[in-house]
């Protein structure tokens, strides 16, 4: 374990900026979200690095799977049509201070995009992304990552670096060779750590990692996430979807803030003789998501679209991906849905269906 004094953080980040494009949580007005480190150095922007707020407004998935990404240029020249694939240029991304729930969400995205046929757009970003996880030693009221067997204080591997945010320092350990390399290449910024502090932090982490599963009082953790999977038919055909659909606004907040939602659309931006092809996020809550070219829509009604979202995460995804559930319990849906529809409420309602 190595310590970086908090008052050296900016110098350290400036040093590694030579190698990496750094993204980190930043306080802007009343919110905290990931932002480019460079921007925090501009005095008139009013941005302040914020390593204390547990979760960012948006998930950092956009660094692997951008909101929209233009990847192909095409041009018509007389009878000839030319295509050019856009290269990914610039430095590798280093995402500093993500929480372990978001780190685990990358594993879910990997399953989607890195299995055959491999998604080359995702792969090239994934391969040039370094993650630095901030270990959680406390939870917010909207957290339920442990319901999905995620360890909030992090494990040994998965991310490239892990740190504890404790008193005046950040206490780092490496989770990969790349992480080791950063710790040794920039060793001048790090100090050794007294064994008592290292022991204390590790103990706290172990305790916290095991804590909430045994905590039966947490209202968010009352229902097993396998409920839908185990009772597909009864829950699929139940009234709970219409009940939720009554108030659903059919906006894209849940899907766009969610770290594991990964549906997209491919579109062209075209002028007369040339254009670009891009992909952009899409949402299963939008009515045109499944609209067919001939006009039919297999999910015409709101309740069908809502049901699809939760069935995808808790039934269809595990069916295809060795029982892996596609939720990490970050709680963004809990905090951001304007009409309070969230995955823990769905589980509670589903539990009611089964117990009836």
């Amino acid at each position, binding site marked *: 374990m190595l310590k970086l004094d908090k008052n050296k953080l900016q110098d350290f980040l400036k040093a590694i900026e030579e190698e990496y494009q750094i993204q980190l949580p930043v306080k802007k007005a*009343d919110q905290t979200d990931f932002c480019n480190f460079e921007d925090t150095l501009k005095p008139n922007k009013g941005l302040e690095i914020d390593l204390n707020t547990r979760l960012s407004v*948006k998930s950092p998935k956009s660094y692997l799977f951008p909101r929209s990404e233009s990847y192909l240029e095409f041009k018509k020249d007389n009878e000839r049509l030319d295509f050019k694939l856009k290269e990914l240029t610039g430095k590798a991304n280093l995402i500093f201070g993500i929480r372990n729930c978001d780190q685990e969400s990358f594993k879910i995205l990997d399953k989607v995009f890195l299995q055959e046929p491999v998604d080359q757009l995702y792969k090239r970003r994934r391969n040039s992304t370094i993650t630095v996880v901030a270990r959680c030693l406390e939870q917010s009221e909207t957290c339920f990552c442990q319901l999905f067997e995620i360890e909030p204080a992090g494990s040994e591997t998965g991310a490239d670096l892990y740190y504890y945010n404790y008193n005046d320092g950040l206490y780092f350990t490496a989770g990969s060779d790349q992480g080791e390399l950063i710790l040794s290449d920039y060793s001048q910024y790090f100090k050794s750590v007294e064994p008592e502090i290292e022991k204390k932090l590790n103990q706290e982490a172990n305790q916290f990692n095991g804590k909430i599963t045994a905590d039966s009082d947490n209202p968010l953790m009352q229902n097993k996430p396998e409920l839908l999977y185990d009772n597909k038919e009864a829950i699929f055909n139940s009234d709970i979807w219409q009940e939720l659909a009554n108030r659903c*606004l059919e906006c894209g907040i849940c899907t766009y803030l969610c770290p594991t939602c990964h549906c997209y659309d491919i579109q062209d931006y075209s002028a007369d003789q040339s254009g670009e092809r891009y992909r952009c996020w899409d949402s299963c809550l939008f009515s045109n998501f499944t609209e067919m070219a001939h006009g039919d829509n297999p999910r015409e009604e709101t309740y069908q679209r809502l049901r699809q979202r939760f069935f995808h995460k808790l039934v269809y995804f595990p069916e295809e991906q060795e029982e892996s559930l596609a939720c990490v319990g970050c709680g963004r849906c809990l905090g951001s849905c304007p009409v309070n529809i969230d995955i823990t409420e769905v589980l509670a309602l589903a539990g009611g269906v089964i117990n009836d």
Partner: protein
Amino acid sequence: MEIITNAMRQLAREGLENGLDIIIGWEDGRFEWQSKPAFITEINDIESLNFNNYSLKNLSGYLLKKELKDKKIGIFLKGCDYKAYKQLVNYNQVDPENIQIWGIACPGLKERDFHGNTSNAERCQRCQEPVPEELETIIGKKEVAIQNSPEDKYQDVKKLESLATDERFDYWKDQISDCIRCYACRNTCPLCECTTCMLAGGDSNSDDWIDSAKEFSQDFFFHSIRAFHQAGRCVDCGECEEVCPVDIPISKINNKIRHDIENLYEMPEVADDDSVMGPLLDFREDDPEPGSKGGKENA
């Protein structure tokens, strides 16, 4: 709050007993700082109705849901919600025959920011009509203190107007660049009543006026055109700004237009009945055109 909640349950009970199909009100959310719309069809569920400090959600927009067509509905409306409802009636979007409205004298509500700090809701700070006085039944204490004078409610707009054009553009560029185009602002707006939005989300993406790509120009176009479409109709219920997950100050755009309508064209910010032509329908030769070169600044 308790007085309102009790009266709400009582009226809902009478409503269902007297033949209403569905009651639209609020119930508590999972956390103390939440409140969500409730749709009650059974007398047994009436006890779940609750009006709390966070019952901001303007319920009038739900009257547009196609599932509710031809249903006999009872609905609770605060001052701002009622203003939106009147616009829906003006534009023939709802049939008042099928709707029983109960007014709520709104005491002013709270909002909670991303970091968990609570304050008086901004929309309530601007509100001039918390009590829907015209309604026959109003629950709650009718004497509600107005938090700001009619002119003060435009202080944010005036602050922006005082900036140089470049600074103003930078401000909006910074704000609107955060847009993720979730369309929550449009979907929650009680007066965005089009069943198919021409800007985005139409039957086929190629019909959309804006491109799905996340580009500032597209985001800017979306927000500005939506604001123009609401000119003379927006009642400043603040729903759009409330739901925005990235805190874009959408109300400032709408309020700039409301302020201009009143000041430049001497029309009411919102036309109260259909005898007044809205600003987008009315044209006078001597209309001021402050935006165009050589245009008249004032009427």
